[in-house]
């Protein structure tokens, strides 16, 4: 069993509104799984179903080989997008309360809190009230509370919102470390650069349907257009450019380069390999730059959403 979490054709309606239509995903153990989609696509509904906050109309969720049960609450740590803490409650007391709700004993919770508070250097906040902390500080507490009970599955919905770049990278490192220690992470965000950086797998939900799913590298391979970015110098640039344009599809390209090169994107038809192109070019020009254009997560997102 390599998948920690499997959703089997999960559907959910709210009145006449179809929030999820037959969604199936597989989250491999130890991966960081990006759950992507435009606003209102149904991501939060799916996450709430995984957290047993909402019940699906049909379909089932399998966690670690067996159907999701109420006792699985302690196996999941969830940081919702709409998050907050009791404003007038003290940090320590509140963290203890939330940890106990996740099934930790008071003693355990206290030990782990001390560890985390030391680690994030926030030990002196214990007796402060949440309303005395800044938003970013409160977010840190919230993060600690989410991971404190060492769940198998961590679900982060926009985990970096409200953090400055330093704290965002601190939290990112913590998430990666938790993954390395064996946790599986579902990660929902609109920040494509963090998807690029962190996710191994992604699923894209659009208008209640899953439109894309798989390993990020596979998806990229699937989305690549056999386009190459080239930079070269030629003794007769105009004539040569004209020649290329006759043979291939050419698009303008912009990249930084030390030489005063001619830059272009060349899209190859299926039957021509990159070596063929390279051979064609080397015989006529001096090549400084030759890179396959790999679609970014951002491109894939926009392209997929627009095409659906």
């Amino acid at each position, binding site marked *: 069993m390599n998948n920690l979490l499997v959703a089997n054709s999960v559907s959910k309606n709210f009145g006449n509104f179809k929030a999820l239509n037959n969604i199936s995903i597989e989250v491999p153990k130890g991966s960081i799984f990006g759950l992507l989609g435009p606003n209102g696509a149904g991501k939060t509904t799916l996450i*709430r179903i995984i957290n047993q906050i909402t019940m699906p109309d049909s379909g089932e969720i399998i966690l670690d080989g067996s159907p999701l049960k109420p006792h699985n609450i302690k196996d999941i740590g969830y940081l919702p997008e709409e998050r907050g803490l009791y404003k007038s409650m003290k940090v320590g007391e509140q963290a203890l309360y939330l940890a106990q709700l996740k099934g930790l004993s008071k003693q355990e919770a206290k030990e782990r809190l001390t560890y985390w508070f030391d680690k994030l250097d926030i030990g002196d906040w214990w007796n402060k009230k949440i309303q005395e902390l800044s938003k970013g500080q409160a977010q840190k507490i*919230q993060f600690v509370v989410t991971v404190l009970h060492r769940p198998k599955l961590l679900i982060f919905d926009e985990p970096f919102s409200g953090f400055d770049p330093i704290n965002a990278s601190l939290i990112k490192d913590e998430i990666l470390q938790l993954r390395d220690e064996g946790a599986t992470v579902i990660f929902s965000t609109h920040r494509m650069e963090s998807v690029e950086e962190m996710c191994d797998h992604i699923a894209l939900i659009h208008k209640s349907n899953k439109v894309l799913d798989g390993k990020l590298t596979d998806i990229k391979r699937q989305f690549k257009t056999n386009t190459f970015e080239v930079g070269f110098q030629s003794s007769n640039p105009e004539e040569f450019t004209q020649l290329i344009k006759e043979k291939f599809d050419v698009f303008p390209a912009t990249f930084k380069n030390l030489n005063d090169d001619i830059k272009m994107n060349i899209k190859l038809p299926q039957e021509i390999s990159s070596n063929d192109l390279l051979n064609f070019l080397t015989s006529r020009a001096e090549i400084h730059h030759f890179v396959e254009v790999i679609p970014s997560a951002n491109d894939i997102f926009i392209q997929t959403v627009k095409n659906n």
Partner: protein
Amino acid sequence: MNHLPLIIKREYLNKVRNRSFIVMTFLSPMIMIALIAVVAYLSQINNDKQRTISILDETGVVGEIFENADHTTYTLINDAGLETAKELVRAKGDFGLLYIMKSPDTLNLVESINFYSDDSPSVSIISGLERRIEKRLSDLKLQNEGVDIEQIRASKTKVAIAQETFSGEKTSKIDSYLKLAFGGAAGYLLFMFIIIYGNMIMRSVIEEKTSRIIEVIISSVKPIQLMMGKIIGTSLAGVTQFVIWIILGGVLLFVVSAIFGIDLMQIQSPQQDMINQAMAESDAQNIAQDLITGFVNLPILNLCIAFLFFFLGGYLLYSSLYAAIGAAVDNETDTQQFMMPIIMPLVLAVYVGVFTVIEDPHGTISTVFSFIPLTSPVVMLMRIPFGVPIWQQLLSFALLVCTFIFTVWFAAKIYRVGILMYGKKPTYKELWKWLKY
């Protein structure tokens, strides 16, 4: 996993430690007692005021009956005209002048009596004067007819009907007042409790929504657990507050009356008037006895058990509705439209209790309203001291429990959906849709 105790504990401690809750708990009884003390003090000052009323009696038959009373001195003015008498009274600073004009028919003075004063006198002063004059005149008339007044006085009889139920329980009027007081207190207490702590529950739900912690919590506990924990925790805080109020109020009342020597019982209230009247009518000796038998006659055990159950049932029914309202809205100002349907039956219950149960505790209206679940806790609690058949109590309670289960189910549905809804003010139609999610 059962987190209910944990949630109850948090809700309770959170309420009890809240600064404004503490202030309210200790300040309200002080304010109440201070108010009572001020009112008592003022009415005492008022009563202590000495006033002198001068009487100019041209007929010579009425003036002599006025004897000096506690706070009023009567002085007779002789041999003076009305104008001189007025001057004299004003110069002396007397309260007023009672002028009885000479008329041809001494006994027919109906329209020839005047009272002059700077300030207009209170109704009680005037009616006091009228009563005395009327009595004197009718005595005189009777004497003129040759009737012996002493004989009439001697012929006056007093009747006290001894009340007894068919099953042999002795009752009395005092008894009825006692029942009224117990029933009224129980019903009113429930009413107050629902309003105060229902609102507190609602605010606490709204707070969880606005602080956005709700989704974090319900990823760990079931919404219904959270709701019940909230209701129970807040109620326990409420009971704590009530107990402190009663103890502190009692102690303060005792201390204040001891220090200032004010007889707080002097404050007249309509109920007390009724009781006084009842007491005046029965023999002084019997009063104490009546009170004791009245108290013993109260279905104490029934009252206590019924109070516990109806109070609990009624409170849970309403507080779950309050919780549902809190879940449905984003902020307190939006609660108004949903509050009406809750407040209406409550107020109705108290009105029915106050107006019809007193008149006729077992009449149709009282009986019907003591079965309708939204009004039954208050009305039934008011009826029970008058003796309600057990089957009626059980039926009413069964209905209450059914409705209570239904409202908790209903509230839990609304709560479950509502706590995750932000940004729009829901309509009744939408709430209806939520039930089907």
